[in-house]
């Protein structure tokens, strides 16, 4: 801390000298008109994202523009650290769990499972919400769950990811009670309720309830290949 401050002070002094000497030539780029060395790293990161024209002007699939996409909500802010290594701070963990519970919308009544065949397709599909040079068109193809990117669910059908735990025989090991269904619905919808700052996305809002019910069937239905591995 101490050293950082002394370095920063030296930096600021140097920068003003450089400016006075006329070294900094503006390039018609707004970013050049501000002194980036006067900002903290966090401030500069926000500045780069929001004030330097770094994004295409496009309508996002969920509505809104790039600014909405890139604006962080409370959970994203709280989890913007190296969550794979650093031990999660207890206070942050508690706050993230509370935020996630607040955001989560529980289904009314008993939870029904959908069709595991549709669930298998959705778990495999990485389509949806990609934007920029190549835009996913939700009008022609529904968004998928990307589950195979991170989880092994049925290793006989394709090579699957290992960012998350192996889910083969998930239902076979846990059964298919309402309690289990509630838990799985909570995890898929908003996993931060159980795993604060997890790498897993919050699918409530990205997938429809019907899509989630198909994916849940894929995980829990005794007929599903996931449970016959």
């Amino acid at each position, binding site marked *: 801390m101490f*050293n*950082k401050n002394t*370095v920063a002070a030296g*930096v*600021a002094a*140097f*920068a003003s000298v450089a400016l006075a000497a006329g*070294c*900094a*030539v*503006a*390039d018609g780029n707004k*970013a*050049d008109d501000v002194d*980036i*060395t006067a*900002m903290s*790293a*966090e401030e*500069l*990161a926000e500045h*780069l*994202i929001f004030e*330097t*024209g*770094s*994004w*295409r002007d*496009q309508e*996002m*699939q969920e509505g809104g523009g*790039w600014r909405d*996409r*890139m604006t*962080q909500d409370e*959970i*994203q*802010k709280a*989890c*913007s*650290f*190296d*969550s*794979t290594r650093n031990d999660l701070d207890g206070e942050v963990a508690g706050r993230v769990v509370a935020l996630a519970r607040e955001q989560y919308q529980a289904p009314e009544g008993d939870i029904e499972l959908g069709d595991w065949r549709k669930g298998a397709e959705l778990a495999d599909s990485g389509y949806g*919400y*990609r*934007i*920029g*040079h190549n835009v996913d068109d939700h009008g022609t193809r529904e968004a998928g769950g990307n589950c*195979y*990117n991170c989880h092994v669910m049925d290793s006989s059908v394709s*090579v*699957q*990811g*290992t*960012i998350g735990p192996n889910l083969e025989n998930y239902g076979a090991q846990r059964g298919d009670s309402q309690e289990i269904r509630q838990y799985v619905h909570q995890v898929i919808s908003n996993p931060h309720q159980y795993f604060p700052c997890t*790498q897993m*996305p*919050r699918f409530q809002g*990205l997938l429809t309830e019907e899509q989630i019910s198909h994916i849940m069937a894929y995980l829990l239905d005794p007929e599903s290949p996931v449970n016959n591995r």
Partner: protein
Amino acid sequence: MFKKALLALPVAMAVGVAGTAAQAEWQDPNDVLQKLLEAQPDSKYLHQSEMNIMMMPDNPALYLLDDGEELFYKERGPNNASLESCDFGKGEGVLEGAYVELPRYFEDTGKVMDFEMRLVHCMKEIQGFTSDDSAVSQRHGSGSDIMRLTTYIAHQSSGYAWNPPLDHPKEQAMRDAGEVLFFRRGGAMDFNCAACHGDSGKQIRASVLPEMRNSQEWTKAVSWPAHRAGQDNVRSQNHRIRGCIWQMRHAGILPDTPVNTALISYWNDAARGEPAILPDLKR
């Protein structure tokens, strides 16, 4: 910051003793790769594709070198000028070791620029191209001028250790902002870069992912230009960033913008001291 610099020093020295790294001397890209493979026999990332390792001496990216050299020295554009007066940071026309010392601060523009930004700057300022000319508007693909030039220029730094300068306060500021961006969660699926590049040996489908803290994995990770076998094209660092940000469901990143520069400042710094493989061959 200070603590980190102190830690980095003994690490660099230890690596030097192990014999893989830091040289200010050109090495053939395949030789660089072979030494990294020997140094890290257990790295799943480095050893993931036997096919690519075998192909490395005949890396299709090498075919771009002659065209790139010709483009560099040819008098082109409305100003009928070659790129020999372009300064990539080590003086006009000096290419040896220049690529691994980017991004850096340039006095003539007053900002920190990454390689592609600087190349485009020179093509516009020296040769007179405009953004609409295909010479600068076409950024991707082995057939583009930019990728041919990039491959030729980067090749002149093969085997040199990554060494992006941090002496200028703006260089340090951009590197530090890049670190924040690497860990910043956002977009439709809450991803940051570390979600996929924070743990070693993890896989997204068939791709084994490089871990950022393993600098010998990371030097290969950031060694672009590289021929991507799966896409049958030579790709750049900027193309990789665009691809990962697209997968992350953040917004669509534009070329020549400082979010690119900050991320590259951070990721080249994370490979500091390790030799660059230029050009590389990837899956």
